[in-house]
């Protein structure tokens, strides 16, 4: 059979602009969330995480916001650079379920010079 790839949401930004990537998670029991960056042909690379007792966490040029009321997670990248071009995945971990990662679909970020 033929594998038909899912059409990833795509965000296109100009170099230097701020990027916001959104993610809706599925399980209200999830208590830990992670953003990963995946460049072509490479494995997922950890960017930033947040626990459910927080609603905001900042890293270097990245900020994660968590809204548990609407089960929404966002990743903000400040001053986006060409090296930020990648697919970004959010992942959730819930308290039960052996705490395995449940991955979102991913968003493709394209940075235009």
């Amino acid at each position: 059979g033929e594998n038909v790839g899912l059409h990833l949401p795509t965000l296109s930004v100009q170099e230097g602009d701020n990027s916001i990537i959104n993610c809706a998670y599925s399980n209200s029991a999830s208590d830990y969330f992670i953003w990963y960056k995946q460049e072509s042909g490479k494995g997922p690379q950890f960017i930033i995480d947040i626990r459910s007792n927080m609603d905001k966490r900042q890293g270097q040029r990245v900020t994660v916001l968590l809204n548990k009321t609407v089960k929404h997670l966002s990743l903000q990248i400040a001053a986006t650079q060409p090296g930020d071009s990648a697919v970004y995945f959010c992942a959730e971990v819930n308290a039960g379920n052996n705490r395995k990662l449940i991955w979102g679909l991913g968003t493709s970020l394209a940075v235009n010079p």
Partner: protein
Amino acid sequence: EPEVTQTPSHQVTQMGQEVILRCVPISNHLYFYWYRQILGQKVEFLVSFYNNEISEKSEIFDDQFSVERPDGSNFTLKIRSTKLEDSAMYFCASSVRQGDGYTFGSGTRLTVV
């Protein structure tokens, strides 16, 4: 920085053949995982392994799949009789704690022809 190492980076095999994908997790990690990603799709959980036994497996992880930690450093995924639909990127990951602090390897691209 410690890394999870996977070999080979690319494996081509004929349908029906057995393949073994190899991983060297981070040395002080206790939890080990295999995930796969079919081209253009999201990352899917296959199996988690702790204390020398499988702690959880997904529906994908059927009787054709097995995992082993043959010595103190390697963690392998075996597919007994490969099918075309097994073609995917296979990622190994390890963590110190369950569901937390994952580190992913760069993956093995398996192509079944």
